[in-house]
């Protein structure tokens, strides 16, 4: 069937209020909007009004796959989700997340390329999708259960090859840091999407299929997949002696106690010793079609089970645990147990590391939070007991402090600031505000969003300001992310200089950390590339292998593989350059228009005053110049930050330009 390579052809559209299910034709959207994030953005444009609030029935959960999901292309295992997020500081706006596991493949084998969910069910329900059918089923016996128990129940009912996305108690109680989880630690962790799902009375979506995905040129698809896999595969890593993160087998095979990266990423040091003595058993897991195997389970001889992975890992609580227990606790037991509990509750693991715990500790040290007003034993901060109580309070919104935690960090900090001011404690209020701005540097309506741990690299500035902080992960593409800990800083610098020269004509682009050299073209390239990646839907793991690799520093990378495998799979012939621009360029503009429609303007592309105070290498004058350059390069109006009509029409978004005009937004 021409036109359907890589795709099945139908997208489910579910109205939970009315209880009915219809379909959309995938080919009405692709290949123009690529798939994954781009497809979801177009569906969001069509389905989600700028007036609706995030926790109202009119919001949509838009789950999409890409043309590579379910195929042999390595690491194309993620499901993308677009939704209006309730978790920013001031207004509800578009956000997205993605998660791995097996769901994207199972959804395709079950006969669908995506699921758009609107409305709100009268009672708790779950969606069950299987071989061309979709049903809304009662979740009466699932509601209230944690993420693991829910999945056990669903897999018990529908077979263990089924895959699901579920919420835990945090999502049910509309906590703004609630996540949507699959398996053990695949999560859609950003933007409080778990709360959106809970607001719809939707406990889970599950899929299982025996169908098929066809590819345009099977032989080529097979050969290219093999070539890409070789860049990532554990076999190759072991053969070249470069086994390193994110592959978890390093903890068994080539563990280095002195390696700071390994010691930090999980409680590896203690786990390794415990495994050697037989007290724990490690298990290694992978997402569908990915050989990176970045998931790990830790089972103790007394039956305690916990898990970790690269993104949402056990290391989040490790530093706190060390502050309380030192190195005495067996196998990092506290951090694994607390992380385990956090995951079961369905709370964002990543944010707790970079969002909740830092501000919480700061507030405790500043005397803003006490035993009385938190209801927590602060003296036991870092203990297992403390961690469990903390997450229980949050997930169940217990007491005033539980309500505060459930607001998630941005809103909670602003609330604290407000309370300080009300009590006349203006100095403390200012301190809270400063700390907030360092974690969430955007000023204006679009503030909030993913916290940043350290504002240390200027190549983060523009992506931080203009898009989702996730762009920072893409910087790992050039940041020799894949090069393991055995590579020296000097060698890394040489690789970065070579990559800067090759892609941006300036060897300082990547190495100049505190300046703006080449940062506008770098930002544009990375933003466009992220749309390509998240359109497929590819995990970020292969991307560092297209541009650099961990095997040897001489490797130049071969990004042409991206376009080649896309073309061989879909039959839509495009080079990597064409995917990045105009396709990626168009998708950046589409998302920008969504935000513009939700109220974003140039004044929102800026940082709070304290951010400039705190970083003497960042001046307002220079940032303004960079922003002007960026807007010009993008074809956006310098005063408003709105994409010009000429640009939108050039990119095939004339309808979007017309819709903006109809909404009273002038497109110059």
């Amino acid at each position, binding site marked *: 069937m021409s036109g359907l390579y890589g795709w099945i052809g139908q997208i489910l559209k579910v109205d939970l209020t009315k209880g009915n299910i219809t379909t959309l034709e995938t080919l009405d959207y692709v290949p123009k909007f690529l798939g994954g994030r781009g497809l979801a953005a177009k569906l969001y444009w069509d389905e989600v009004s700028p007036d609706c609030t995030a926790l109202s029935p009119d919001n949509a959960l838009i789950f999409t796959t890409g043309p590579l999901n379910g195929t*042999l292309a390595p690491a194309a295992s993620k499901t993308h989700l677009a939704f209006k997020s309730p978790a920013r500081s001031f207004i509800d706006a578009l956000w997205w997340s993605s998660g791995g596991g097996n769901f994207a493949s199972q959804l395709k084998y079950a006969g669908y390329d995506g699921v758009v969910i609107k409305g709100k069910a009268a009672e708790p329900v779950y969606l069950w999708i299987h071989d061309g059918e979709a049903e809304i089923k009662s979740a009466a016996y699932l509601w209230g259960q944690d993420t693991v128990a829910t999945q056990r129940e669903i897999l018990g009912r529908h077979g263990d090859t089924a895959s699901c996305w579920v919420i835990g108690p945090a999502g049910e109680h509309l906590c703004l840091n609630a996540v949507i989880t699959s398996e053990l630690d695949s999560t859609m962790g950003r933007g409080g999407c778990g709360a959106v799902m809970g607001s719809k009375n939707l406990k889970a979506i599950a899929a299982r299929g025996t169908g098929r995905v066809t590819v345009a040129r099977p032989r080529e698809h097979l050969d290219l997949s093999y070539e890409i896999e070789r860049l990532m595969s554990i076999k190759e890593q072991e053969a070249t002696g470069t086994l390193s993160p994110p592959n978890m087998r390093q903890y068994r095979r080539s563990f280095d106690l002195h390696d700071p990266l390994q010691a930090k990423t999980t409680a590896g040091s203690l786990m390794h010793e415990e495994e050697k003595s037989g007290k724990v058993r490690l298990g290694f*897991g992978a997402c*569908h079609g990915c050989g990176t195997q970045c998931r790990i389970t830790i089972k103790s001889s007394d039956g305690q089970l916990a898990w970790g992975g690269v993104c949402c890992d056990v290391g989040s609580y490790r530093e706190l645990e060390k502050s309380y227990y030192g190195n005495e606790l067996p196998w990092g037991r506290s951090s694994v147990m607390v992380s385990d509990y956090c995951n079961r509750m369905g709370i964002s693991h990543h944010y707790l590391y970079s969002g909740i715990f830092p501000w919480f500790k700061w507030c405790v040290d500043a005397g803003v939070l006490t035993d009385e007003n938190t209801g927590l034993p602060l003296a036991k901060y870092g203990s297992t007991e403390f961690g469990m109580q903390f997450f229980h309070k949050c997930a169940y919104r217990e007491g005033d402090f539980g309500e505060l935690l459930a607001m998630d960090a941005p809103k909670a900090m602003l609330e604290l600031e407000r309370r300080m001011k009300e009590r006349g404690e203006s100095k403390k209020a200012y301190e809270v505000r400063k700390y907030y701005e360092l974690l969430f540097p955007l000023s204006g309506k679009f503030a909030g969003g993913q916290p940043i741990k350290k504002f240390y690299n200027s190549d983060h500035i523009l992506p931080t300001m203009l898009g989702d902080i996730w762009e920072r992960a893409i910087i790992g593409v050039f940041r020799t992310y894949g090069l393991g800990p055995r590579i020296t800083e000097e060698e890394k610098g040489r690789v970065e200089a070579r990559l800067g020269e090759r892609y941006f004509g300036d060897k300082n682009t990547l190495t100049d950390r505190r300046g703006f050299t080449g940062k506008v073209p770098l930002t544009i390239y990375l933003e466009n590339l992220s749309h390509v990646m998240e359109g497929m839907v590819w995990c970020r793991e292969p991307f560092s292998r297209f541009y650099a690799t961990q095997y040897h520093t001489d490797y130049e990378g071969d990004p042409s593989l991206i376009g080649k495998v896309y073309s061989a799979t879909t039959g839509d012939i495009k080079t990597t350059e064409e995917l990045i621009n105009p396709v990626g360029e168009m998708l950046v503009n589409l998302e920008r228009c969504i935000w513009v429609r939700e109220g974003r303007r140039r004044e929102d592309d800026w940082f709070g005053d304290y951010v400039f105070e705190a970083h003497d290498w960042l001046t307002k004058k220079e940032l303004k110049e960079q922003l002007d350059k960026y807007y010009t390069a993008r074809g956006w109006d310098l005063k408003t930050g709105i994409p010009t009509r000429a640009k939108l029409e050039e990119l095939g978004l004339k309808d979007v330009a017309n819709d903006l005009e109809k909404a009273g937004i002038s497109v110059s």
Partner: protein
Amino acid sequence: MGDGKRKTKVLPRRELDAGTGAVIKGCTGHLVCDPSICGGCKKCEIVCSLHHEGVISPALARITVKREIFDGYVCEAMPCLQCDGPECLFVCPVPGALYVDDVTGARVIDPEKCSGCKLCVKACPATPKGIRYDTEKKICFKCDLCGGDPQCVKFCPTGALAFVKGKGAKRNVRAIWVDWADSQSRLDQG
């Protein structure tokens, strides 16, 4: 059957082809998966169906991956055992539809001759079954070792899957999943 009591069939050990009386050649080697390395990525299933059928569908793969999650990852790819005494071959009613490959020794189904009766599926003692039924083509299919260059081994990113020459290895790997005496009684249950 017969007197109404449930009978357990114990089949005689057979190494001879019932038709010709010749000794059935053992397979030259076996696919072996190391569960301590396997992460359940299922690339073996994907590449198998793509290689054999030209489409991607785990339901059409000649290999099945068991993947347990919630009590700790336990993953293992479960290929056809290429049994010494292949029950599938013994029960196949169509001459030549299931045969032993001259070069590899693999037990192979000829798709041109297979009638889709599924007696081989019923006879297969392994869990999960080494033979499956294609509901579209209405014939059975099984692992043929890709003529000697098994693609699943090639594509396995971790090295968990290997093709091991000789007899010894397969028994150890599958011993925990296939209890020979127990599996005989399953023939009654189909």
